[in-house]
């Protein structure tokens, strides 16, 4: 075991391989506040990569309703059962990651879902956290009863559980962009990776008998384009780009800005220790205790910042760049009422008005003598 630095848990941790960060690390921001659960992302991924036989159950991208949705069934409940309640001391995680305190038989603290666990991709869909009683009304945040859509892909972790679990190094992390891939020539179908990934994002192909996982649409990324699930997103909740290594911040990089400067986007279950690279903006209406368990100790500050977005032109500007272009934005700039996304060389990719013109109708229409509903 090597000792590696995991900035998300505020300490070093044990990992089977020494720290070896890629030259560039791909990263995503997902905003569940805006996700409508339409599954366009799921279908975009499925119809691009996993429409072969043997991949029927594979959803490299899935969207589940929290708290009762999960694919595979109970994936995070199992993880929490295995890890116990997360012990945080400020930004430092005091408990054990999935790589620490292991029995001698294991390389990672994992579990393998059963066949049936993969059979219910929409279990718990749109189910709320508690019954809504007659007359219930939730004027304040968080809501008394809630659910939210959690869109999930492989996190292309810095310290992947899948890589740690594979006894034959058949999974590798690309030095050029940090994308994690299963070598289809070396894979022997042991499914140790499927057991070791805390997010259950490695899946066995029942036809080819090897495991497969999200490939971050690397042929697109190599051309400077964002993955399919990002560019197809109806709710414009996603942004893909590159995150600077720990200790470095580029405030003009939209990913760095949201994760490191404004700290409004947080890793999911950071306590697992894999340093996942999909960052979520916690849904402001959902139960805080639940969110703290899922996104760690930064939840409250992130929500405070996010809830004030309308008074925060720069933050608002970055959010308007979500889903505005297919190319990867390495930099952004706000020019008055215009948000501008730029490529690596500073050339402009897209410009978007920070505020779209809008018109609010009067409640009572004098001409038609009727009441209006302002629904958008």
């Amino acid at each position, binding site marked *: 075991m090597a000792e590696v630095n995991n900035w998300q848990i505020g300490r070093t941790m044990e990992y089977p391989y020494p720290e070896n960060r890629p030259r560039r690390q791909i990263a995503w921001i997902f905003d569940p506040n805006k996700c409508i659960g339409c599954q366009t992302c799921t279908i975009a991924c499925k119809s691009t990569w996993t*429409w*072969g*036989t*043997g991949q*029927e*159950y594979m959803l490299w991208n899935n969207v589940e309703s929290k708290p009762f949705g999960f694919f595979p*069934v*109970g994936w995070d*409940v*199992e993880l929490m*059962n295995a890890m116990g309640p997360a012990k945080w001391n400020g930004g430092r995680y005091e408990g054990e990651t999935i790589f620490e305190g*292991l*029995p*001698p*038989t*294991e*390389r990672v603290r*994992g*579990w*393998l*879902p*059963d*066949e*049936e*666990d*993969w059979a219910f991709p929409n279990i718990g869909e749109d189910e709320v956290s508690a019954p809504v009683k007659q007359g219930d009304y939730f004027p304040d945040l968080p809501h008394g009863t809630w659910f939210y859509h959690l869109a999930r892909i492989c996190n292309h972790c810095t310290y992947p559980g899948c890589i740690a*679990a594979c*006894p*034959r*190094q058949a999974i590798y992390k690309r030095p050029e962009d940090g994308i994690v891939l299963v*070598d*289809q*020539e070396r*894979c*022997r*179908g*042991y*499914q*140790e990776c*499927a*057991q070791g990934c805390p997010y259950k994002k490695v*899946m*066995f*192909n*029942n*036809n*080819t*008998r*090897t495991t*497969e996982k999200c490939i971050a649409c690397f042929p697109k990324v190599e051309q400077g384009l964002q993955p399919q699930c990002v560019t197809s997103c109806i709710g414009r909740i996603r942004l893909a780009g590159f995150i600077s290594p720990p200790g470095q911040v580029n405030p003009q990089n939209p990913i760095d800005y949201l994760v490191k400067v404004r700290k409004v986007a947080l890793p999911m279950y950071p306590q697992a220790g894999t340093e996942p690279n999909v960052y979520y903006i916690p849904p402001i209406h959902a139960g805080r205790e639940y969110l703290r368990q899922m996104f760690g100790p930064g939840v409250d500050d992130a929500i405070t910042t996010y809830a004030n977005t309308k008074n925060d032109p720069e933050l608002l500007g970055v959010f308007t760049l979500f889903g505005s272009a297919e190319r990867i934005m390495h930099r952004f700039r706000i020019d008055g009422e215009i948000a501008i996304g730029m490529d690596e060389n500073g050339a402009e990719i897209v410009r978007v008005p920070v505020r779209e013109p809008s018109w609010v109708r009067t409640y009572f229409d004098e001409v038609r003598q009727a009441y209006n509903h302002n629904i958008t």
Partner: protein
Amino acid sequence: MTTERNVDRRSFLRGAGAVAAGAVAAVGVAALVSSRAGATDQLIARRHEGDLPVDDPDNEAWLSLDHFVAPLLMQQVAPPQVSELAVPELWVRALHNGTDIAFHIEWGDAVVNDIEQMSRFRDAVAVQLPVADEPDAAAPQTSITMGLAPIPAAGGQPETPGQVVHILHWKASWQWDVDHGRRTVKDIFPNMHNDVTPEGLLGEANSVVFYPGVFAGNSLSARERTSPIEELTAAGFGSLTTHEQQLATGRGVNERGRWRVVIAMPMDSGDRSKARVRPGARAPVAFAVWDGAKQNRGARKQYADWVPMEVEA
């Protein structure tokens, strides 16, 4: 891993499966032993005239031989490991005809696991021989860890050469493929329906790109299967590699709760990267076995240490 807790929590999904598994286990209680001959404490590859009964594990030529009992150990050298001894021993017999050598391996396993799918693993057995210029002398020096990787020269020390082993790996799932034609998703999930498949739209040849394992030439993904045995080489844990030359043959059957598997190979394939066995000499062999029902796979296995096999002149 499946735990009691999982079972409790999701028992509503699994009630029917548990009943079915119970029925299979009950059948296993009646397991019988096939041997007609006795046990021997020396593994001897007897000379056999004519073709070896490679396809027939029930052949009298096999069952009339005394069996060598190879006690098994849990793989607990490196993680991932097993924590339960699923198979305590193997019965091994061997025959050769001067050209080919064949092993007949028998063990108790009441539940046949011959499907590879998500969360399900297959039964398997393997024979391992050292690759050496003088195989007779290799036994005591060869590591049990599937050979050893070479240690590069460093600090004035010259390179330590590695040790290569030749592995013959029989898989129950491949046996099924050979006996019935390659198992497809339809065989595992009969009610599976696809609106459109890559092969349906693009034809077999053009759709290969949508089957990465096939495209990469992975032996597990091969569309055509003629032998249930795969030949591999390794130089240390984690280095197992399919050999370019596939000559091994054999067959496995499970009857009355016991697997009987024949694994055969040429005594000298002509390829120096494979093991060679000479009549009249000794050849070290080691074995490993996997019980799919216990989620054995890869390093989660039982193994038998090197056995000095005598090859009759």
